[in-house]
């Protein structure tokens, strides 16, 4: 009795594996049949000739700083450094800040958020950045927060693009 059952289980297992490999091979072949040029076309938009942002679409750097500080404070309140979830926290933090930036009225700006989180162990650390951009419209802001055994620094760059 037990032998019959095991034999049936083996054959069904083998069938499902065979079916999966068939499906996989079919899927691969269908991907190859799409012509390469079709999905790699680069869409070039018309030139907008907008060298400056509108008056009401500028970046208010004070507001950016406030938003970033708020996000940072709420995310690391009562945080104790833990190597495992520090990775996730840092990714989540940078995504959160970026999402807040997207909601600003400045619609022709591109945003870069750079977040560093580290453990405090009496080491020295330096974060530097230099930019080659349009001084009139592009801005950057840095906010940081220190806890008992960790520090976190977030730098946000806002770049105007026409």
């Amino acid at each position, binding site marked *: 009795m037990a032998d019959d059952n095991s034999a049936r289980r083996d054959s069904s297992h083998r069938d499902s594996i065979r079916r999966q490999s068939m499906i996989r091979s079919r899927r691969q072949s269908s991907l190859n049949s799409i012509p390469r040029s079709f999905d790699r076309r*680069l*869409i070039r938009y018309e*030139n907008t000739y907008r060298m400056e942002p509108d008056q009401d679409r500028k970046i208010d750097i004070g507001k950016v700083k406030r938003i970033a500080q708020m996000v940072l404070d709420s995310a690391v309140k009562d945080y104790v*450094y833990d*190597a495992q979830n*520090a*990775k996730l*926290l*840092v*990714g989540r*933090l*940078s*995504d959160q*800040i*970026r999402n807040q*930036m*997207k909601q600003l009225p400045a619609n022709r700006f*591109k*945003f*870069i*958020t*750079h*977040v*560093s*989180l*580290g*453990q*405090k*162990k*009496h*080491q*020295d*650390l*330096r*974060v*530097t*950045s*230099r*930019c*080659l*951009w*349009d001084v009139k419209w*592009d801005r950057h802001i840095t906010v940081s927060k220190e806890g008992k055994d960790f520090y976190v620094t977030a*730098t946000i*760059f806002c*770049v105007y*693009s*026409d």
Partner: protein
Amino acid sequence: MDDANEVAFIVDEVSNIIKESIEVTIGSQSYQQAKINTWTSNIVEAILNSLTKLNKPFKYIVSCVIMQKNGAGLHTASSCFWDNSTDGSCTVRDDIDEIFSFVIERQFAYIFF
């Protein structure tokens, strides 16, 4: 319309520039607290100068983190809201004896015909 204008982001070229600049500035020196300021500025400015010499229609942001190796942990994340087809970033990590450094370079298209 100048379609032959190369406005693609070439990662290899840029990462070579970054590696070279780190090697030239720090080489294999050990950590010296007095020099750390000069090192970071030199690295970043050298990279930016080399990138400008490429003469591409791009805006650049170069960011450098140098940390003394002490057993402490460091996590970095970067989140960008840009145009994927024209903009890109390149990160180079360098692990010297007592120094841990990495440089992130980002490039935005600024095409103006």
